């Protein structure tokens, strides 16, 4: 900008503010960044949404335990129960739970049997191992007698009562087509969907950094080859490729096949395939930044005072790449989530019984008729989280780009 452009009024204002800021304490980069980010109100709200989603994903087992539900326990007697309904576990499952409890707590069981005999809850000729089951029947048929028995007896009885209480579950958002709790599946779905997005972001950041930095730093032949590969991969439409990869049985490939074993197979497969097809924009950004930094005066200055290549890369290149990298990775995570949920919706991504927000919508076209809530909620969650990711990315871009600082 030339001197002539600035009218005299602003000029004096400029000098005035300059004088003022001279007396102020200078701010750290982090403080500036936080200040800038906080200015983007929508991004701040979005960040809150993401933090909430992230926390519920991390603490999913605890939240679900507090709610007293399980994302995978089916109850065909209570399919499509509406929001706020209670359901009782089928008798077979109740018995299984009791058997498990008896197996794990032999001491408590003995005490419980003693208590039951003392309180004359069961007839004397009843077999010892049948006592808990009989008690459970009493609980269902005559809750008052059972309650008074629990209050008069030792801790074994109250432990047993606590177990039996969990046979009746309360479903805040109702149940799905297999009688599973929708809220529990949503929370576990957040876990999978967010994890896939984060892992894809992480691995493609690493791949992008590796390829981009190599191309930018060494230049010449390596740059040429790597960038041609990047260009070629960028021109390919990814969705059809994902479908082919998802449908192919990668387990038949020698080394990759062994990596893909186990119950997390579909998750690992998704992350590997997606990360290997999404790193290109990141590589380009990194390469561009590295190229421009390489020629900058401060790198020259660093070289003149005799800094090693390593400290130049760590001290000057990485901090400068970091900003654009974070923005690109954030936006990429939004895309990754869109792809994962889309593929899971088509039945090619995360495989049931593992819950993902995408595969919860697999039967949505039929659910539209029977239980619209089930078709609406998972999609709404996907939409909310992706829009939040995009806004946070936008906010980060504003906050990290020194050129965009609005004053």
């Amino acid at each position, binding site marked *: 900008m030339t001197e002539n452009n600035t009218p005299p009024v602003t000029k004096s204002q400029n000098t005035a503010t300059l004088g003022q800021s001279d007396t102020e304490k200078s701010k750290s980069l982090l403080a500036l960044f936080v200040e800038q980010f906080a200015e983007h109100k*929508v991004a701040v709200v979005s960040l809150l949404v993401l933090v909430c989603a992230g926390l519920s994903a991390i603490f999913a087992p605890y939240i679900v335990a507090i709610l007293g539900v399980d994302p995978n326990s089916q109850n065909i007697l209570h399919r499509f129960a509406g929001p706020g309904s209670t359901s009782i576990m089928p008798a077979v499952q109740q018995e299984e739970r009791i058997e498990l409890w008896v197996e794990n707590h032999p001491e408590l069981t003995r005490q419980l049997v003693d208590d039951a005999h003392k309180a004359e809850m069961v007839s004397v000729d009843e077999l010892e191992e049948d006592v808990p089951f009989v008690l459970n029947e009493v609980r269902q048929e005559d809750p008052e007698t059972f309650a008074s028995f629990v209050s008069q007896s030792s801790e074994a009885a109250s432990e047993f009562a606590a177990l039996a209480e969990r046979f009746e579950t309360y479903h805040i958002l109702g149940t799905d087509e297999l009688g599973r709790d929708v809220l529990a599946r949503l929370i576990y779905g957040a876990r999978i969907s967010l994890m896939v997005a984060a892992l894809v972001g992480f691995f493609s950041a690493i791949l992008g950094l590796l390829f981009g930095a190599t191309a930018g730093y060494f230049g010449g032949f390596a740059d040429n080859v790597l960038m041609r590969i990047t260009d*070629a991969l960028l*021109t*390919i*439409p*990814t*969705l*059809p*490729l994902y*479908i*082919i*990869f998802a*449908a*192919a*049985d*990668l387990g*038949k*490939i020698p080394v990759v096949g062994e990596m893909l074993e186990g119950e997390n197979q579909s998750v690992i497969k998704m992350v590997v395939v997606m990360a290997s097809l999404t790193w290109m924009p990141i590589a380009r950004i990194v390469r561009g930044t590295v190229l421009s930094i390489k020629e900058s005066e401060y790198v020259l200055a660093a070289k003149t005072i005799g800094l090693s290549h390593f400290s130049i890369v760590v001290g000057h290149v990485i901090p400068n790449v970091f900003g654009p990298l974070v923005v690109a990775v954030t936006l990429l995570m*939004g895309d990754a989530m*869109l792809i994962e*949920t*889309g593929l899971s*919706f*088509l039945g090619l991504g995360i495989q049931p019984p593992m819950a993902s927000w995408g595969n919860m*919508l697999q039967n*949505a*076209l039929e659910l*539209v*008729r029977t239980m*619209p809530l089930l*078709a*609406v909620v*998972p*999609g*709404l969650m*996907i*939409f909310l989280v*992706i*829009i939040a*990711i*995009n*806004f946070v990315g*936008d906010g980060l871009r504003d906050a990290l780009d020194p050129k965009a600082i609005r004053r």
Partner: protein
Amino acid sequence: MWNFIIRRLFFTTIVLLIISFVSFALMALMPGDPVEELMMSNPSMRAEDVARLKALYGLDLPVYERYWNWLTDTLRGDLGYSRTYKVPVTDIIGDRLINTFLLSFTALGLALLLAVPIGVIAALRNGTKFDYIANLLAFAGQSLPPFWFGIMLIMIFAEWLQVLPAGGTTTIGSDATGLAALADRLKYITLPVVVFTVSQMAVYVRYTRGAMIEVMRQDYIRTARAKGLAEKRVVFVHAFRNALIPLVTIFAIALGNVFGGAIITEQVFAYQGVGKLVFDSIIGNDFRVAMVAFNITIAMVLFMNLVADVSYAFLDPRIAYK
């Protein structure tokens, strides 16, 4: 220029060959070739019969030899038979291509018609309420999962209001002709077009807005204003024409991507296009169809990218292609 085009054409062909080989190899990894399926349905089949059948269909050859056979067959115009539909592949592809073209071009046209004016107005009123709302909606459109949006439209318009069909391409068994047939198609294509338009609009709005803001900051805009031109002329002749350059590229790339992107929309609405064909044939193990549909999709995208690059060079003389 010609040199550049030829070089890019060569490069594109190489990429296409590599992708077709990769897709061929991946499809070979899918469970169940025709002979394996025969074995499953007939467990008493003898091992030598299996070997004989595999040799007959060339399934015992290594992947690269099978790929070579497929490639030479395809280049000779022999696309093979569909295992699902029991007709030559060439008989299926044509109609599907037309259906997808119809869907994606309508959506693309609509998206541009709506998005470009919105983007221009948002850029000219940078910082106003209109700009803010347009930006917010663009973000929403970009984040909206298309399959879920489709499901919601089906729920509202097909299930609750019952004004539009939930899916399909035409009414099955209808023998309407002329205008009635057109109206029938229109009824089925409306919802997929809406989904496709909305999911693409977002990008165009943001690009047009960005490009316009960038151009309006240029020195030549200030010059145009300084010499006293009407604002209308400044905006439309000086600014908009220059903002169009990046937009053309985005448009050409999008033109290619509509083929890849149509898969989910077509699947949700059971719309009989190439995208659904790609999906169905891969899932249904219909190898010949899958190879052709998939590679046509890829070729479309690569070709459109080429067109984008070339048109870019024509539009922007500053870019020299060596």
